[in-house]
């Protein structure tokens, strides 16, 4: 065995005898700590917790995410040399029993001796060896390439050097107009340095784009103030008197002034280590379908490996390599590696571009919109999809990736392209790969939800590992989890403790809980993340017919201060305006208040009311007082407005008095909390100007009666409501609508809008519950109970009777003695200190409000 002392675990030298019987390798050494080396460690550990794993990294860092190196160029101020790019925290290696040697290079492989020579003079023995040694940037052999100010773009050191140089330089040149060159150019620009991209070919990204797409990419890059110079062969890099770069000279004799040059023209797989040991190499280290090299105990993977004549320069194949290589090293049966579909995404924030597979093909279809810089193409070969380009509009990326991977047969490529654009997560086939980093398909995610009972994105991510690599697929994972959760699996009220609404409701009823804290104490609901507390608060109030003990700490801030928090921390104020009917006196008061409190914007809402936006929290009580109108509950899960059209009062088509009915319904319902917001409308005739058919509850006057619609929506979802009943009188329509409202209040899950609730329960069941005379009567009775308690009080009256002295106010600001002016100031720990601080605060109280308060 070896002579060095870095072995992980205590049994480094013992057990040779046992080894003879057991075919399992005892020690795997991985050379190269890039994404490939790291992935292999993880795949090995997933399969075998005993095998010794040693990772030898030449770079002075733990494995990091090279793909996002450009973050170090564009981020405001990276923290440390790796910023946020380190793939796993330091502890991971100890926790997973992986021995890592950083800043240590393998100098030589002794194949017969199964031993490695390290740059520090030590040797390491292996049973199995993995080469994950990546590649080197390709540097053109031209005069001046070694000058100061000329950099490759491969690792953190290059990146830091480019960043520092860009901050000083007057003009930069990037040699290479491929994926990485454009990314590097953008990074240089982020440091405020003008840049020219110099490219040998007649178009950008010729390996990923056809001529049409490239011709649209060019103006898009130029619009970002990037100069692009095509068909330029750099012959020499010119030096100034100090040996620093001053420009480029091209084959046509022209020159470009540049005091910073970044080179990104391709990669050269690292293979010398293997070659010297006698392992077969071509462009890279040659591997078979088990990723085995010509030497049985040695595998190669990642950018250094050449498989079926292909060397990949992208990250996605690496994850597939790692799985196969792990099986091969552990001598297990597993899938063979058959090659990967090359695809790439341009990581330039302003330009959406995805290229998949063979983008030329022998035919296909293109839809291009020059003025919008959109170019979408499917490439075909022998009737099957072989590639795609999506520029400007990358909708359908996952669907097309899957289609190309499976070689989908397509008759009408143009139609297929249009279909892909519409393909939401619902339409993706189960086999579609969602997370390329970890090779997780849609089906895996769906199963985690439906079969393993995971309910949150977080849980699904930790179990399937989807989204835990680069994270670029997280939104899609969330969508799929949501869709899968839409099945009839239990939706938990409290996902942390896995408690359903039914369970909690049962606890509340049987134990007579009347406050959230009691339920939390008894069942643990809401104690872990707290996010379900509002749901719990609703349930407690609903079951107690609003005769519960209100605990504001369980409510969202909106319901603590009865206003809607905005993205900047201010609030919006929407007064009640029943049926959308107001008068000049109200309008005058609203206008005056808007002036007095310097309201950021006055907006007429989609619900026929007026919204005052940008009100400070501590101004809320005063503005309500001035307006003198009740709360419109625009901030809560509550009955919002009943929108109405002018109906028989004014409209020449009117069949029913929609204003009267709208105003009455809103008056009867207002103040009630509901599982999710309830928006309603009343239209005076089927022309439906109040859009009642797409409201949670809508009433439409028809010849000789009224139709009541439920479960409509025209928001994130669009759904036409179902007619639950057609009745003769306005009074009857009110009863039906109100009974439905109460049934919904009692049975829907928190945040479940009627457009989900109605299809879930089914129209027939709802009609049974709501139209049956007895059922209706009891629903209406419970509704009245709840309403009497709720309506006792307009929440905005809390301005005169707050639940806490500081319901609407934060703590008083504290001004300190000038920080840092002279070191001693404020440093000591004598008790006197805090007193002097307190004095400052007194002063502050009489002064103007401090800067920086929102």
């Amino acid at each position, binding site marked *: 065995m070896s002579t060095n002392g870095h072995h992980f675990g205590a049994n480094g030298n013992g057990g040779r005898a046992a080894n003879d019987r057991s075919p399992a390798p005892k020690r795997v050494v991985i050379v190269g700590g890039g994404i490939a080396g790291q992935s292999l460690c993880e795949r090995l550990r997933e399969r075998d917790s005993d095998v010794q794993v040693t990772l030898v990294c030449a770079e002075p860092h733990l494995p990091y995410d090279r793909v996002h190196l450009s973050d170090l160029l564009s*981020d*405001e*101020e*990276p*923290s*440390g040399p790796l*910023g*946020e790019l380190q793939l796993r925290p330091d502890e991971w290696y100890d926790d997973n029993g992986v021995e890592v040697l950083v800043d240590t290079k393998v100098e030589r492989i002794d194949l017969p001796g199964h031993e490695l020579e390290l740059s520090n003079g030590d040797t390491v023995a292996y049973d199995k060896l993995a080469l994950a040694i990546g590649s080197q940037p390709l540097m053109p052999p031209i005069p001046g390439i070694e000058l100061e100010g000329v950099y490759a773009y491969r690792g953190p050191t290059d990146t830091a050097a480019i960043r520092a140089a860009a901050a000083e330089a007057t003009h930069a040149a990037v040699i290479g107009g491929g994926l990485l060159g454009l990314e590097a150019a953008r990074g240089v620009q982020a440091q405020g340095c003008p840049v020219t991209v110099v490219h040998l070919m007649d178009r950008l990204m010729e390996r990923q784009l056809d001529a049409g797409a490239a011709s649209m990419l060019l103006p898009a890059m130029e619009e970002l103030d990037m100069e692009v110079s095509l068909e330029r062969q750099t012959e020499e890099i010119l030096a100034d008197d100090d040996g620093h770069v001053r420009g480029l000279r091209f084959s046509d004799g022209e020159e470009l002034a540049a005091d910073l040059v970044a080179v990104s023209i391709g990669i050269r797989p690292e293979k010398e280590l293997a070659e010297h040991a006698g392992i077969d190499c071509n462009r890279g280290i040659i591997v078979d379908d088990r990723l085995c090299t010509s030497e049985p105990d040695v595998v190669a993977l990642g950018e250094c490996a050449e498989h079926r004549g292909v060397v990949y320069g992208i990250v996605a194949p690496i994850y597939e390599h790692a799985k196969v290589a792990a099986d091969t090293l552990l001598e297990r049966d597993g899938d063979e590696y058959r090659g990967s579909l090359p695809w790439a995404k341009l990581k330039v924030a302003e330009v959406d571009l995805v290229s998949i597979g063979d983008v030329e093909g022998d035919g296909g279809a293109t839809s291009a919109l020059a003025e919008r810089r959109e170019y979408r193409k499917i490439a075909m070969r022998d009737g099957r999809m072989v590639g795609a380009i999506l520029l400007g509009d990358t909708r359908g990326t996952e669907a097309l990736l899957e289609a190309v991977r499976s070689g989908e047969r397509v008759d009408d490529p143009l139609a297929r392209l249009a279909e892909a654009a519409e393909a939401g997560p619902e339409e993706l086939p189960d086999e579609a790969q969602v997370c390329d980093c970890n090779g997780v398909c849609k089906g895996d995610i769906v199963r985690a939800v439906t079969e393993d009972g995971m309910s949150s994105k*977080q849980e699904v991510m930790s179990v399937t590992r989807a989204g835990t690599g680069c*994270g*670029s697929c997280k939104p899609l994972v969330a969508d799929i989890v949501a869709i899968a959760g839409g099945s009839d699996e239990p939706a938990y009220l409290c996902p942390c403790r896995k408690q359903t609404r039914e369970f909690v409701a049962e606890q509340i009823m049987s134990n007579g809980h009347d406050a959230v804290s009691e339920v939390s104490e008894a069942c643990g609901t*809401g*104690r*872990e*993340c*707290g*996010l379900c*507390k*509002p749901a719990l608060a609703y349930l407690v109030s609903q079951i107690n017919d609003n005769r519960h003990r209100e*605990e*504001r*700490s*369980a409510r*969202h*801030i*909106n319901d*603590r201060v009865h206003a809607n*928090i905005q*993205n*900047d*921390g201010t609030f919006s104020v929407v007064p009640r305006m029943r049926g959308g009917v107001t008068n000049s006196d109200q309008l005058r008061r609203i206008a005056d208040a808007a002036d007095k409190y310097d309201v950021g914007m006055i907006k007429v809402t989609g619900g026929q009311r007026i919204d005052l936006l940008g009100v400070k929290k501590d101004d809320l009580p005063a503005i309500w007082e001035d307006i003198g109108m009740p709360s419109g509950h625009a901030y809560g899960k509550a009955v919002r407005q009943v929108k109405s059209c002018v109906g028989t009062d004014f409209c020449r088509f009117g069949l029913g008095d929609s204003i009267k009915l709208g105003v009455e319904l809103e008056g009867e319902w207002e103040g009630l909390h509901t599982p999710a917001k309830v928006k309603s409308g009343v239209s005076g005739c089927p022309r439906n100007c109040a859009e009642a058919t797409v409201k949670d509850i809508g009433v439409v006057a028809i010849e000789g009666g009224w139709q009541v619609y439920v479960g409509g929506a025209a928001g994130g979802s669009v759904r036409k409501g179902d007619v639950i009943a057609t009745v003769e009188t306005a009074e009857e329509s009110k009863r039906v609508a109100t009974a439905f409202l109460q049934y919904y209040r009692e049975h829907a899950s928190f945040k479940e809008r009627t457009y989900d609730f109605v299809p879930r329960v089914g129209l027939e069941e709802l009609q049974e519950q709501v139209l049956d005379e007895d059922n209706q009567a009891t629903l209406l009775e419970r509704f009245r109970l709840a309403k009497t308690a709720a309506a006792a009080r307009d929440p905005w009256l809390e301005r005169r009777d707050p*639940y*806490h*002295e*500081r*319901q609407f106010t*934060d*703590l*008083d*600001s*504290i*001004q*300190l003695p000038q*920080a*840092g002016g002279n*070191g001693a*100031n*404020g*440093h000591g*720990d004598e008790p006197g*200190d*805090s007193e002097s*601080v*307190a004095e400052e*605060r007194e002063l502050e109280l009489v002064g103007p409000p*401090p*800067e*920086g*308060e*929102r």
Partner: protein
Amino acid sequence: MTETISIEGVRVCAAEDVPLGEGRTVIVAGRPLAVFRTDDGFFALDNTCTHMGGPLADGIVADETVACPLHDRRFELATGRAVGHECGGVAAYPVEGRDGEIFVTMPLLEGAASDESRLATGAAEVEPAEVTPTDGESPAGNTG
């Protein structure tokens, strides 16, 4: 990292100023803090959510965490550590109660540096030098 001054025991409020289970903002030397009160006592964090700058004091408080009112990112009350998201943690400050008055100890650092990721290690309490003053604007929140 230049000079630091450490402010020990600034009185921020009386205990009853913060309702049980809620938080309130206090601006100390221009820096917005969130002071929380739970059954286990008082806690102080930077008020500004690392996601998009939401006011943590207005969040929902559970036994050990607070969830931002804007998009539900969670932070540990005691350490400021990010819980279940990658936006990074916030600084946490030691809090002490004496005779019904609440005192916060706040180390300040002169000169700006990006503190997000380092604070994410939850080191705020032990490494006071890593706290930076803000100008009252929300941070860029540029982590994916």
